[in-house]
C-alpha cells in the first residue's frame, strides 16, 4: 500500500498528501530560525558573552576587579593584563567581566520593564478604546516628541540628585550601587512607547474577531479575554520587539553612563568604563581603555540585532521560507 502511494507521481497527489506532517508553531519557527545563518551566529555569540561575563567570575574575584594597584597605572595590554590597566591601576579584563554582568543584567531587566509597560498600555488602549485610548495615546505621543536620550538625561539627573540617594543592594553575591535599579527603571520608562503602539494596533484588529465575541458571550472576565485570549496572538511582534529592546537598553545604558549620569562607581558597566576613558590624554594615549568595553557593547548589540532579525523572519506568518 505504502509503496504504491509513494510511486504515484507528485502531480496526482492530493494536497493533503503533499503537506508535511503538521508542525507546531514553535518547531516551525525554530526550523525557519535555523536557516538564518546570521541569527545562529548571533545566538552563539550571545552564549559566549554570557559565559564570559558570568563564567569569568570563577577566574577573577570582584575584589580583584576593583583592586587598584598604583604601581601599574595605564599599562598597555600585556600577558599579565591582556586588556591593559586603567588610570588607577585596575585590570581592564576583570572589569569587563564584572561590567558585562551589569550591562547584560540592565539590558534584560530594562527590557522586562519596558515590555510590561508597553503591553499594559497598548492592551488597555486597544481593548477599551474611547476616551481611555485617547488619553493613553496622547500620553504616548507626548513622550515621543522629545528624543529619548534627552528625556533620559533629565530623569537621570533627577535621580542622581544627592537628596535622592538609593541604598546599595546585594545581588549575585555582589554589592551593587543603587543607581543600577534607577537606570533600569528609567530606561524602561522612556522606551515602551513603540511597543505600546504595536500592541494597540494588534488589539484593535483582534478584538473584532469571532473568538473574542465567543469569549465575551460565554461571560469570560475582561482581564482573561485580554491576557489569555487576545495577548497570545500578539506574541510574535512582542518577542521581536523585546529582543531588540535588550540591545537598545544596553546601548542606552552605555550612553548615559558615558555622559556620567548612569551607574556610579565602583560598580562598573561597559558604559561607565568608557566614561573613565574620556579625558583627552587617556583617549589618546591609552586606547585600550575605551576599545575593549566598546567592542563588547558592539558585539552584544550586534548579536542581539542578528537574533532579532532571525526571530522576525521565523515568527512572521507572512514570510514564505519554511
Amino acid at each position: 500500500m505504502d509503496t504504491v502511494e509513494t510511486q504515484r507521481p507528485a502531480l496526482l497527489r492530493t494536497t493533503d498528501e503533499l503537506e508535511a506532517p503538521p508542525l507546531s508553531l514553535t518547531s516551525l519557527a525554530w526550523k525557519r530560525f535555523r536557516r538564518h545563518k546570521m541569527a545562529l551566529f548571533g545566538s552563539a555569540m550571545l552564549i559566549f558573552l554570557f559565559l564570559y561575563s558570568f563564567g569569568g567570575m570563577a577566574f577573577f574575584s570582584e575584589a580583584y576587579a576593583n583592586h587598584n594597584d598604583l604601581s601599574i597605572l595605564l599599562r598597555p595590554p600585556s600577558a599579565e593584563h591582556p586588556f591593559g590597566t586603567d588610570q588607577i591601576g585596575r585590570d581592564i579584563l576583570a572589569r569587563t567581566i564584572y561590567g558585562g554582568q551589569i550591562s547584560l543584567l540592565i539590558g534584560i531587566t530594562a527590557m522586562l520593564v519596558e515590555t510590561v509597560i508597553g503591553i499594559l498600555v497598548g492592551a488597555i488602549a486597544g481593548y477599551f478604546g474611547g476616551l481611555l485610548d485617547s488619553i493613553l495615546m496622547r500620553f504616548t505621543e507626548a513622550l515621543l516628541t522629545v528624543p529619548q536620550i534627552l528625556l533620559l538625561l533629565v530623569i537621570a539627573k533627577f535621580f542622581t540628585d544627592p537628596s535622592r540617594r538609593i541604598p546599595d543592594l546585594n545581588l549575585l553575591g555582589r554589592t551593587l550601587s543603587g543607581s543600577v535599579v534607577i537606570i533600569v527603571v528609567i530606561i524602561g520608562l522612556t522606551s515602551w512607547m513603540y511597543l505600546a503602539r504595536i500592541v494597540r494596533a494588534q488589539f484593535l484588529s483582534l478584538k473584532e474577531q469571532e473568538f473574542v465575541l465567543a469569549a465575551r458571550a460565554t461571560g469570560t472576565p475582561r482581564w482573561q479575554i485580554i491576557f489569555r485570549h487576545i495577548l497570545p496572538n500578539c506574541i510574535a511582534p512582542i518577542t521581536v520587539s523585546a529582543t531588540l529592546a535588550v540591545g537598545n537598553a544596553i546601548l542606552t545604558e552605555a550612553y548615559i553612563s558615558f555622559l556620567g549620569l548612569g551607574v556610579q562607581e565602583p560598580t562598573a558597566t561597559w558604559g561607565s568604563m568608557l566614561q573613565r576613558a574620556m579625558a583627552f590624554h587617556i583617549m589618546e594615549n591609552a586606547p585600550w581603555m575605551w576599545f575593549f568595553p566598546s567592542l563588547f557593547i558592539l558585539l552584544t548589540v550586534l548579536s542581539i540585532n542578528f537574533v532579532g532579525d532571525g526571530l522576525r523572519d521565523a515568527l512572521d506568518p507572512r514570510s514564505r521560507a519554511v
Partner: protein
Amino acid sequence: MGRYIIRRLLQAVPQLFIISIIIFALLYTTVDPIAAMTGDRGKPRPETRKRLERKYGLDQPWFVQYIYWLVGNDWLMLDLDFDGIPETPGPRKGILRGDFGLSVRGPRPALEPIGEALPNTLLLMGTAEAAILGLALLIGVYSALRQYSIFDHFVTAFSFIGYSMPIFFIALFSLYIFSVLLRLLPSPARPLRTTEDFALALILPALSISFSSLAGYSRYVRSAMLEVLNQDYIRTARSKGLPRPMITFVHALKNASLPLVTLVGLDLPMLLGGAVVTETIFAWPGMGQLFIRSLGEDPAVVMAILMLIAVAVVIFQLLTDLTYAWLDPRIRYR
C-alpha cells in the same frame, strides 16, 4: 485639507502640555538655579538668596512655577523688599507670549545661548544628513539593482554593524586614527577660532554621525527600491525599451524615495537636540553640549531646548504627512 491641518494642530496641544509638565516637574524639583547664578561669587547671603528666589518665583511649589513659566507672572505684584506690601510686578511674560525665561548664566534670555549653539548644530547635522542621504541613495539603489551580489551581501552585513555600532565607538576610533595616529586632523581640544578650524573640526563628528545612520537609511532605500522594481509599470517601461538609467532614476527612484520622506521628516527635528554623545567627544559647541552643560544648573535653557524640539517634531510630523500626500496623490487626508 485645511480642516485636517487644524485638527492635527489641536491634537498636538495636549501632547505638548503633557511633555512640558513632566519635564518641568523633573527639572524644577532638582536644580538649584540660585547656586549656579551666584556660583562664581561664592555662596549668596541669605537675604540675597531670599530676594532672588522671590523674584524668580523659586519660593513657590513647582506647579505654581509651571503656571508662571506658561503664562508669566507680570499680572502679580511681588513683595521684593519684604515689607508685607507687594509692590513690584512679576518679571516674566510666560512661554505662551514668547518669553522662555532667564538663563542663570548672565542672567540673560534663555534663547540667547540657544541662538549661539543652534547654528553649530545645524551645520553639523546638515552636513551629516546631506552625506547620509547622498550615500544612502547611491548604496541603496546599487544594492537593489544587484540584489544578492557580493556587494549587496557586504552592504547588508555592514549595515547591521553600522546599526549596532555605538556612536562613541566609531567616534573614538576615527578620532584615534585620524587625529592621533595619522595626525591628519587637529585634536578636538583645540579652540575653534577661524573658519578653517571649524571646517576641520566638522569632518570627524559629521563622519561619525553619518556612519551610524547611513546603515539604516541605505537598507530602507534598498527595500523600497526592490519593491518598486518588481512593479508592473517598471516591466512596461523596460519592454518599451526605455534606457536603463531612465528607468532606474526617473521611474523607480522617484517612487522609491517616497518612504524616505517620512524617515527624514521624523529624524530632522530630533537632530535639533544635537548628538549629545558625539558633540561631547568632539567638543563641538552645539545644542547637545549646551544641553549637558545646562542640565544641572539652568532649567530655563533645558526647558527651552526641549520645548523647541517638541514643537519642531509636531510641525515636522504634519509637514511630512502633507508632503507625502502631495507627492503621492493616492493618499488623501480627511
